[in-house]
């Protein structure tokens, strides 16, 4: 029996075994390749998406356990109309290879939704699970602070 999930506002019937991780449903069945595979074991954060507004690792979430609406990087904004946090990412020229950045942005967006003015310690705590092999951490931090200032009318 197929599973029904809602991704970026659209409902999809997915005919796959229930233990397939959401990551691979998004990437291979729905063609939403913005969400990345880095480790498959919850250690890198490249696969981060929102489930009911919370940041989760899509590689650790089985299809059968998807119990709320999913938002991926594609649902956040587009090149023509980037979300405010994406605009700050672009303004701070954060990405290098870029492979980790979907996950970084989704994690940061969830942080800001919960804590509109995170200090460095809060950023460290929220972002420590998202590794970047290119070492873009300084600019990630700057972009998060800037996005927070902007949301707070600064």
């Amino acid at each position, binding site marked *: 029996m197929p599973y029904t999930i809602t991704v970026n506002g659209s409902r999809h019937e997915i005919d796959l075994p229930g233990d*397939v991780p959401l990551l691979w449903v998004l990437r291979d069945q729905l063609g939403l390749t*913005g969400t990345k595979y880095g480790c498959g074991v919850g250690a890198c954060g490249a696969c981060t998406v929102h489930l009911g507004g919370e940041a989760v690792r899509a590689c650790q979430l089985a299809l059968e356990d998807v119990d709320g609406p999913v938002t991926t990087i594609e649902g956040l904004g587009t090149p023509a109309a980037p979300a405010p946090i994406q605009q700050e990412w672009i303004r701070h020229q*954060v*990405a290098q290879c870029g*492979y980790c950045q979907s996950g970084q*942005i989704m994690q940061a967006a969830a942080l800001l939704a919960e804590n509109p003015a995170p200090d460095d310690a809060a950023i460290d705590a929220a972002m420590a699970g998202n590794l970047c*092999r290119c070492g*873009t951490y300084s600019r990630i931090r700057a972009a998060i602070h800037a996005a927070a200032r902007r949301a707070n009318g600064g």
Partner: protein
Amino acid sequence: MGRLAKYTRRAFLITSAAVAGGVAFGVYESWRVPPNPLRPGEGRAALNPWLIIARDGAVTIVTPRAEMGQGTQTTLAALVAEELDVAWEAIATIHGPPAEAYYNGAIMGLGQPFRDYDIRPWREKIREATDFLPKMLSLQVTGGSTSMIDGFAKMRLAGASARETLKLAAAKRLGVPAETLRTEAGRVIAPDGQALTYGTLAEEAAKLDPVRDVVLRPPAQWRYLRRPMPRLDMAAKCTGTATFGADVTLPGMKFATVRMNPARAGMKSFDAGAAEGMAGVEKIVDLGDGIAVIASNTWLAFRAAEAVEIEWEPPAYPGETDALEAEIAAALDAPANSHLRDEGNAARVLESPPEGAVAVEAEYRLPWLAHACMEPMNATAHLDDTGHLTIWSPNQAPVLARDKAAEATGISADDITLHTTFLGGGFGRRAEYDFTVLAARVAAAVPGVPVKVMWSREEDMAHDFYRPAAVARMRGLVQGEKAIALEARVAAPSVTRQSMQRISGFAPPGPDKGHVEGIADQPYAIANYSVYGHLADIALPVGFWRSVGNSFNGFFHESFIDELAHAAGADPLAFRLVHIRPEHAPSAQLLEKVGEMAGWEAAKRPGTGRGVAFTYSFGTPVAQVIEVGESPGGIRITRAFIAVDPGIALDPAIIEAQMESGLLFGLSAAVFGEITFAGGAAEQANFPDYEVLRIHNAPKIAVAILENNRGPGGSRIGGIGEPGTPPAAPALANALFDLTGKRPRRLPLMRDFDFFL
């Protein structure tokens, strides 16, 4: 031989042009345009191999080098745009197809048998270099931090030639002399103010002989260079719309994975009984030396691949870490392969030191390392009904990848199209062709079906071409505040030889410069200075890892210089200056700068230690100061200061990013990085056991860019992607010594120090 001779001659022309500076500014250059591999199709015109102009005025710059995070496409585009006169917003980039036009002339220069900072008898030495170098057969390579060195003149010439050719087309159409026309923002403008857009001229211009005699603009007129340009890949990478290899999606595509021998040998037999009936599995392919599972979903392919029972052949090298290390150490007692630095008589002075000299000896050991690119290895391929093979591969060497795919499948290279996608990190790993070839082989087993071959992270870690382990024995003498002798012996497997053997079946004899880069070529004046390279011949696969030999030699040299400084009772930064100042002024200026940034003269903050290191690699000197501090959770790397001198700084924001990136890559390896072996297979499989620095334990970083290292012509540039890495580990080790009094002589540091994790 004909092909080799041709490459050599061309490489010489470009190397001398780009490096010697004759062509750099305001000089007429008669430009030989290589055959144009581009077939842009209706409504688009390729004026030369580097740019396509569409009717609507959109300009696509075709980059000969691969974008793997280092910003190469943006700066290569800026070089073209600087001469072409187009708005930045009108520009996009694509990767060039495998083609002769895109060879990397500067990569030959890496083998030059002289020290980069020693720039006197230029041309003779470059000529030597091209003759000396083992010949690379496929030179379309992104590596050695050479993209800008190679492209600095070439890309501007491409832009200038296109601009002049567009003017010629406009002159014909308007019936006025070309000299009366000017260009601005994608338009040719006549004296009477009439303007023709490039889009309307491009197709006519492409039919003309490209203008070859052009004058390049002087830096004073630059608008896109020496300033931070918005990266052309940024919006796509921040919205999940950039296509990496892993993201290639084709109609009817299947998802596959491979399992090859983790002990890097062949396969005896396999039993796919359990895997065959598993959900989603469509086919199990016997590759002879491993298996592939083709499925309807990547994860289902991963799961089924694990369920295949495989009996592997044993490795052709010692299977355990201890035995491998013993072979490397044993190479130190065998005859040396090279003695590329030999000044004074270190052996004699060390035997009978002068009165009052203090002797220092140390042995250092470094481990194997994985690249661990964020995007695991993968490629996609499709053998269509006509027998044509199309490959999509995130790679650093497309000609090589295509030719090796041809070799492995028996399909002629002319029947193979290879597209280079974005690379989710490269760091040298993607200069190899193995993942491209595997995808081609899997596709060849299922004609008509496009198939994406994705490796699991575990497969990626097990099948790396590792940074080799290395051992160094160092001896030195200090007298007063000066080093009077330094002898270094370095042993490690040779990356150059192994790689050349893989590429061409021939390992070049003679001294291996890459093996001692970072230790035989540093700008220190020491009266008796001797560096020997000893090669350990071990079949365990090794490869180019960001900064290559510099990654271990920088640690050896700069740790030992620190030990000498302490033996001399000198300040480590002042001690370095004493030896660097007489040898290379721009490098000394960098050290002074980094000292200033770090407040080196002032007292340390309580509970902290500081370390300094300096390396000169890929044409670019870099000085770093690292501060560490005690904290309740362990030692923190609190701050890092970087001063870099790339000569002309083509894009300061990208240079800053690369410096931070190189530093963190080096620090991650220094703190955590270690691949060990059991039964010939890597024991580390994924990030939990191959950890890297994260946002909470990475230092705050400050970067300063100087432009003193511009050479006599004032137009010299150095590399940027790698030079930030080599000084990181020794600067950290030196800081830990300053903090704890314990001298780190092996890596990773987490074995001997308690870090905040």
